């Protein structure tokens, strides 16, 4: 979507003649508020669902297929990325029925290596861009970062919003940056990281979700994984409500990706229950829901083996990457 079409669509949705910071503010601040206590209670209640036997097996395989297997370290090397890609393709060499993950997520200088390692597998390569994780760079740098990743073959771009601009009420600036990055993505899918740990309030999470969707995000994503807290159930609940309500308003679906801090099968199942009961089952595919995670896959494999054999094998029987 070009800048002009994005802006004119936003004007239509808001019903304004000019997409000023003031009109964006009025719109975002007019969204219904979130009651913190009620939101957290609802997330906790969904967390008590008891998912057993066949449902658990389905949930484990579905979760594995939704993982963006991630390595975002200063110490990343070609070897590390290649080994992660091998794991992405064949998580469990002893059990070929184990599904492969959705994507591998790396810094943009590793995109070419990952692309090569995943050739022909159908697994996407996602690159973090726009001066990840802080986003503190000038716009030309952020766009160059994005284009660089896209040119290297990235299928998906995970951008960060400017939290400073958002928190100081410069919504138009955040909107423009997302629109410009989306344009730079070309055919690549754009995931917009809200960094909810820095937005702090659920009201902010809801507003940032709507702002990102208005600007053309294909996915809204909770966190970089570099800030604590990263993904939480209540934050993801708010984002799932946002994409559900956005579809009612526009007919379009937007994906959701909680990232960071999701390490166990139990956690992953809670997220899937939440997707199912809040956004609805249409979102229960890798096309519309992802987990940004590194160690989650290991636990999912362990639980998968446990279901198949009736016994825990232990961490030594699952490859670390």
């Amino acid at each position, binding site marked *: 979507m070009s800048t002009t079409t994005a802006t004119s669509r936003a004007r239509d949705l808001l019903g304004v003649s000019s997409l000023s910071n003031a009109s964006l503010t009025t719109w975002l601040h007019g969204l219904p508020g979130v009651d913190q206590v*009620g939101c957290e209670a609802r997330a906790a209640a969904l967390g008590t669902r*008891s998912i057993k036997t066949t*449902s658990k097996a389905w949930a484990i395989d579905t979760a594995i297929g939704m993982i963006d297997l991630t390595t975002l370290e200063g110490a990343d090397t070609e070897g590390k990325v290649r080994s992660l890609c091998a794991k992405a393709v064949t998580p469990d060499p002893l059990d070929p029925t184990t599904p492969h993950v959705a994507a591998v997520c790396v810094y943009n200088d590793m995109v070419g290596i990952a692309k090569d390692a995943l050739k022909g597998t159908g697994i996407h390569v996602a690159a973090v861009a726009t001066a990840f994780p802080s986003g503190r760079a000038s716009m030309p740098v952020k766009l160059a970062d994005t284009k660089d990743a896209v040119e290297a073959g990235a299928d998906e771009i995970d951008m960060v919003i400017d939290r400073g601009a958002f928190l100081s009420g410069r919504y138009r600036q955040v909107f423009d940056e997302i629109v410009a990055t989306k344009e730079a993505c070309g055919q690549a899918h754009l995931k917009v990281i809200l960094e909810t740990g820095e937005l702090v309030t659920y009201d902010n999470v809801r507003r940032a979700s709507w702002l990102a969707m208005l600007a053309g995000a294909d996915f809204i994503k909770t966190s970089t994984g570099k800030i604590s807290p990263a993904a939480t159930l209540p934050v993801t609940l708010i984002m799932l*409500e946002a994409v559900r309500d956005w579809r009612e308003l526009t007919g379009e679906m937007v994906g959701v990706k909680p990232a960071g801090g999701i390490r166990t099968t139990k956690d992953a199942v809670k997220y899937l229950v939440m997707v199912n009961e809040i956004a609805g089952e249409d979102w229960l595919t890798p096309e519309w829901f992802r987990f940004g995670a590194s160690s989650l896959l290991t636990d999912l494999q362990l639980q998968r083996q446990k279901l198949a054999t009736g016994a825990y094998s232990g961490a030594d029987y699952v490859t670390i990457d």
Partner: protein
Amino acid sequence: MPKFEYAPAPESRAIVDLASSYGLFINGELVDGTGSSFKTINPATEEHLADIAEASAADVDAAVRAARAAQTRVWGRMSGAERGKYLFRIARIMQERSRELAVLETLDNGKPIKESRDVDVPTAAAHFFYHAGWADKLEYAGLGTSPRPLGVVGQVIPWNFPLLMLAWKIAPALATGNTVVLKPAETTPLTALLFAEICQQADLPPGVVNIVTGAGETGRALVEHPDVDKIAFTGSTEVGKAIARSIAGTRKRATLELGGKAANIVFEDAAVDQAVEGIVNGIFFNQGHVCCAGSRLLVQESVADEVVRRLERRMKTLRVGDPMDKNTDVGAINSKAQLQRITELVDAGEAEGATRWTAPCELPTRGFWFAPTVFTDVSQAHRVATEEIFGPVLSVLTFRTPQEAVAKANNTPYGLSAGIWTEKGSRILWMADQLKAGVVWANTFNRFDPTSPFGGYKESGYGREGGRHGLEAYLQTGEGA
């Protein structure tokens, strides 16, 4: 077929050791009654669970005499600190046996195991812990310098929260030095009888707690017994009025916690997703068998359609069925009689012209079931808007201004509870001040805590239970004390 089907996750009933018949708990022992017996069933399956003794007037008399002896000789003389130790012990045993209590409650009552496990049993234990702490501090409760127990208390409780209502009644009575004779509801006697076993396990002195099972006649014998000093009753307004009449002119005191038709008031600026959760929790929690249920939704006209649309969408995700399944949200109706009452009122609602919408769900063929239902186009005059349905049925009314919301909310003979949903703090305070309801929840609903007094205005009863105020109902205070 749903993509993500939740496989059955039934709680095991193996932990419960059901006897084929149960007697009465009098003077520390389970004894055979002199009356006849009745059956208690599982309302979700109509399975016969056990035969229960129906206490005769003579049995009630024996229980009151045991309570009197225990009060004058042991419990009333014991120091508060010692009484507190017993209450702490009971609380701990309830926690230790919480799964057993939860499973038994669900079998006998029909409520989802999720609720008996996460609400009923822990809150019941919390009432004992809380009142255990008061037992040795009564002089500092602000109720006079030497508050004294009333003596023997007759307590009659309903079937909607059998164990929790027992705890609301017994814990404060014991903490304040009274002894009790308690009659559980005839459809849900089992957890009270397990509680009797817990009293034995805690070495509670004989006669401090006596439990007499039975129906209306047993209750009447207890209420009319001349040696009972106080009656504590939770149940219908009709029976409450009968009790008030029967003890008028006697020395007996009474606290009555009766029916309700609570307004849950949603303003246009409410946090709408949480308000919808609060509406659902307000009326579908415990199948709507809740005296303080938010059975009248008062929603501001400007957002009424939006709120109802979201509510119906949410209701489609409610899981109705086997109460023993850990994923069940709405369980069985407690009895055939209650199901008939709900059906009658819902039929009346349709006949009077309200629009009925029922969540699509498959109900089991055996047992007593009613699918979550909402009525729109309801006027203040419809029976579904005025009478307590005590089931999973919500009536939606609208208002235009805060003043109109208050007027409609208060336009009922009841006054037990109310809910307010708005992001505006000043409006919460103003509304709470205007509403004639004993409990007003703001941006939440159906929250219970032993530290918080609970009770009604108008025909919802009198007296308070819980908190410091609840102690007063079990003590002689002031100059005469």
